[in-house]
């Protein structure tokens, strides 16, 4: 390792070098001790110099992007749990007009300078208030959007429900007491009820698409790497996605157009976007304007993913709704075939196994290292990070479970498990690629069941029971986080809540296309949305 030695560098005490070596189970020769006194002393000089130097972070120009009215909402303007923190931000000199006048909510795991960012957990040391903006925040502001605040995010982004955030329960827009889905729960609710026009969500296992499905809005998990993740708290880079949540497909394309493209800081992203992978909105508009009104999907081939549909725990009414939506696609001219991708049944289990090692280190311990990307260095972990008892007790069931699995995996398996999972993800990606070589999109229910009831805040329900009720809900969403394929959730009708048929809850179809062909998802979804009114469709009542 090339080193730079200076004449008058510090030296460590002999005892300290010996202690460090024995903490690593080593015994140094005497001459080695002397050498390392110099080398480590020199290293410490270097590190202290770096740590005391100014960081390189995207601090916003607060004159250009002024933020006002920052406050924690009370019970009346919190929109039933939707808002975590309110603020108003508008760029004074936008460079584009894609989102002029549109109001936005930003998921509470995305850095907005000067506004607390909870990530769904209350920190014993007080809330994190970043001094910089995530790239996506700057991008929407540059296109004329008005940010209205931070939307509630579930506990450490590790929960598919909407009752685990430190903010409190988020109520389903169509039925109080029911879940919005998570972890972008607040974004789902706020867009659905019209409190904002659009919202940003994050998706590591379905966290954009699950709330989109349960709240009756359009949510896209874009191709991995299409939208920069810089300045967003994540689980780990291979599965981190940030995506648009909107009421309509054209709005979704508009927001994606504002968000997409490399920012030069994020190694998840390609250096250049593939050709025809931008201008999502104009491409979609042109498609809608030129395709025949009755049969816009002539020539499209749609694959119904068998392993995504034939699930033992599939709600029959969700199945009917999705089957009906597929019939609608056929009416619009598409050819429909059944497609089998056997690894789909195992992908979500591999996803779950991959979380503890890398996901906990990144997501829970801020023990981040290794990728070329913007680090949230102001919250990075100190020496030998472990969760305190208070911190552990403040976690949701999903995060607690992940942490315990991390401790278990660290003791019993180590990096092997993560390495194996990561390679299997490559295998899965190839399997979907092969299926998508024969069809334009794969379709399946987004979530196999309608929204569940929220668990009340004062409930003493245990970790196991809490995790059991959501069992199998990520079956169709998580696989595409591991492979990076774009996946869009489109509402297709109402189904009754299983325990109360008088409660009507939205359900959705998921449309998956080739990587970087996000616009194909838009075309199929927009054609359906233009012809059919999902709010007038009811199944199983």
């Amino acid at each position, binding site marked *: 390792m090339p080193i730079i030695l200076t004449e008058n560098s510090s030296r460590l005490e002999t005892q300290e070098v010996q202690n460090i070596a024995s903490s690593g189970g080593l015994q140094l020769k005497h001459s080695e001790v002397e050498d390392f006194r110099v080398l480590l002393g020199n290293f410490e000089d270097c590190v202290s110099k770096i740590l005391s130097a100014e960081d390189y972070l995207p601090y916003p120009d607060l004159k250009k992007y002024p933020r006002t009215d920052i406050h924690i909402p009370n019970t009346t303007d919190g929109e039933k749990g939707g808002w975590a923190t309110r603020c108003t931000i508008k760029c004074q000199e936008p460079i584009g007009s894609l989102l002029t006048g549109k109001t936005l909510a930003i998921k509470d795991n995305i850095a907005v300078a000067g506004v607390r960012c909870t990530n769904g957990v209350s920190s014993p040391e007080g809330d994190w208030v970043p001094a910089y903006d995530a790239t996506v925040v700057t991008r929407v502001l540059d296109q004329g959007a008005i940010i209205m605040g931070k939307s509630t995010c579930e506990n450490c982004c590790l929960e598919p429900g909407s009752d685990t955030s430190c903010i409190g329960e988020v109520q389903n827009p169509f039925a109080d007491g029911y879940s919005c889905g998570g972890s972008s729960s607040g974004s789902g609710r706020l867009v659905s009820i019209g409190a904002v026009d659009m919202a940003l969500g994050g998706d590591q296992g379905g966290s954009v698409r699950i709330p989109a499905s349960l709240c009756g809005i359009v949510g896209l998990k874009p191709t991995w790497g299409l939208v920069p993740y810089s300045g967003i708290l994540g689980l780990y880079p291979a599965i981190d996605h940030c995506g648009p949540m909107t009421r309509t497909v054209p709005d979704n394309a508009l927001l994606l157009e504002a968000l997409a493209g490399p920012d030069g800081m994020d190694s998840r992203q390609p250096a250049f976007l593939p050709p025809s992978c931008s201008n999502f909105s104009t491409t979609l508009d042109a498609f809608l304007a030129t395709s025949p009104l009755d049969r816009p999907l002539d020539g499209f081939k749609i694959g119904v993913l068998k392993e995504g549909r034939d699930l033992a725990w599939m709600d029959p009414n969700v199945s009917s709704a999705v089957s*009906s939506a597929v019939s609608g696609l056929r009416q619009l001219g598409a050819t429909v075939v059944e497609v089998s991708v056997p690894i789909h049944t195992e992908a979500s289990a591999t996803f779950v196994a991959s979380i503890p090692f890398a996901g906990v280190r990144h997501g829970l311990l801020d023990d981040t290292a290794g990728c070329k990307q913007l680090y949230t260095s102001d919250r990075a972990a100190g020496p030998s990070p472990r969760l305190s008892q208070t911190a552990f007790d403040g976690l949701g069931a999903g995060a607690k479970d992940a942490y315990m699995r991390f401790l278990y995996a660290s003791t019993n398996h180590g990096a092997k498990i993560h390495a194996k999972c990561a390679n299997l993800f490559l295998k899965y990606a190839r399997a979907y690629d092969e299926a998508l070589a024969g069809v334009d999109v794969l379709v399946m229910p987004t979530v196999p069941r309608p929204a569940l009831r929220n668990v009340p805040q004062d409930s003493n329900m245990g970790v196991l029971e809490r995790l059991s009720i959501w069992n199998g809900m990520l079956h169709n969403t998580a696989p595409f986080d591991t492979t990076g394929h774009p996946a869009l959730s489109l509402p297709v009708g109402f189904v009754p809540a299983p325990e109360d048929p008088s409660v009507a809850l939205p359900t959705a179809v998921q449309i998956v296309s080739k990587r970087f062909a996000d616009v194909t998802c838009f075309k199929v979804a927009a054609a359906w949305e233009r012809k059919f009114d999902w709010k007038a469709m009811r199944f199983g009542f």
Partner: protein
Amino acid sequence: MLRSWLRQSPRALRSLTNLKCDPFASQFHLRIAHHSLRSIRSVQTATTESQDHVPLRKQLKQGAKSLKEHKRQRRAAEEASREKWELTVGIEIHAQLNTEAKLFSRAATSSADLPNSNVALFDLAFPGSQPEFQIPTLLPALRAAIALKCEIQPVSRFDRKHYFYQDQPNGYQITQYYEPFARNGYIDLYSHDGIAPEDGDQVRIGIKQVQLEQDTAKSQEYPPSMQLLDFNRVSHPLIEIITMPEIHTPATAAACVRKIQAILQSCNAVTTGMELGGLRADVNVSIRQRGEALGTHQYGGIGGLGQRTEIKNLSSFKAVEDAIIAEKNRQIAVLENGGVVEGETRGWTIGSTETRRLRGKEGEVDYRYMPDPDLPPLIIGQDLVAELTKTLPTSSDALVEMLMAKSYGLPIEDAKPLIELEDGARLEYYQDVVDILHSLQQDQDPKARGGLGRAAGNWVLHELGGLLTKADLSWDAERVSAQSLAQIIDQVQRKRITGPTAKQVLSMVFDGDLRPIPQLLEEENLILRPLSREDYVALAEMAISQNPQMVEQIRSKNQLGKLGWFVGQMMRTGEKGRVEAQKADAILRELILGEAP
């Protein structure tokens, strides 16, 4: 009377009940108010309320009963007077024609435009302005006359009818008094049109003539001293339809006006109906005592009638009927008290019990009719008449006949609403369903196919109609396509699904399920898997063993109606959608009554 008419006119029933015109509804409100007053008093005086508390259900029942009794008494009185006195009624109907331009100027016709924005010089009688007959106005007039089976006159002329009033700047109205453009038509009224029972199944009312004329300006009164005039309406083309005095009951008179309106609307001759002022009726009423010497008066070529009075400007069907009843009763009272009926013009206000005198015979204006020298005779070619006759939409009478004939086989109760609903859109949809159904059922026995029209009628009107009503939605032929409905009916006819399943499937499609019917049936596992005889016997025996006393009642008292209850039990306990009522009934008869299987 109103209710009997409502029963026959579902569309009107819907609109009227929405407006809370239902006599029961108002009574209901009254009673509630009364009841709550009493409750307040009972709280104040702390008396026990239990004794004078009458349950709401009972109140409603009593209300309905007393109303029924009142109606019965009124009917009896009417019948007695009808046996003694014969009523004769003739009707004049003014209808606004659906035209672009006015009758004698190029100004546009309008009802919603800014007042006095569509006025030509002639409409305001500017000195020197001349009438210019607008030929296109003739088309709706001719369509109406042809639909009323009139003889179109090759030559007709325009006359001036003089009177001086601020709503007519010329000082005369141009009409066709001496030589109208259409004569000698007729209209057939059937019992389903709501004619009085004493008129039998059908009655034909002659149309004496149809004439073209101008409308007057619209007046708006702002008492005490302001009157505003809107000349947009001056010279709007009207037709006046004059019937022969051949109507002898108030109900038939109302039915006649209603049917004329329907005919005018169906051939697209008029702008709006009575409810929006596009149609107004005047009635001529006279009576004479049966068995006495004939009267000395003659109207429209029919002699021997009593002195008539004219009631002007009736603007609803109910007003026509009620005004005639009131005027008839008034004339009877006058004559029975030894008086004489004066020839006079009378008015009627909605809700009153008596007509009121407007002007007497002595005050009758002299219209000084004279041919209009500014307008040439109107010459109508036979070719135009023939072309219009050919392109006229099928009349509702012909449609009723078609739907009740063998190919559709609908009962009148279904045929009539089908024709009336959504201006014929429902009928078109129904015909599509029947056509598709026939092609789907080609492989079936022709005998079995005979009932398809009737079955389809039931599904289109009652099942689909019921879903629309329940969801409070307006008609949309796309919501459940004719193809889908025909497929559902086809499956029921083939007994591949049960009736309740079919209703469930219809409701699913109605709720937005886009799946083709065969796919839907398969995916939802709805296709009937017939139960075995053993299954039926098991279900029946379970129901029988649980209710021995009812079985005994059926056996000993022959209360066969209770079998239906058992069928219901079997359908509830059996697997949903698999128990067929007919088979269940047969098994029950076998087990309970010992009938041969």
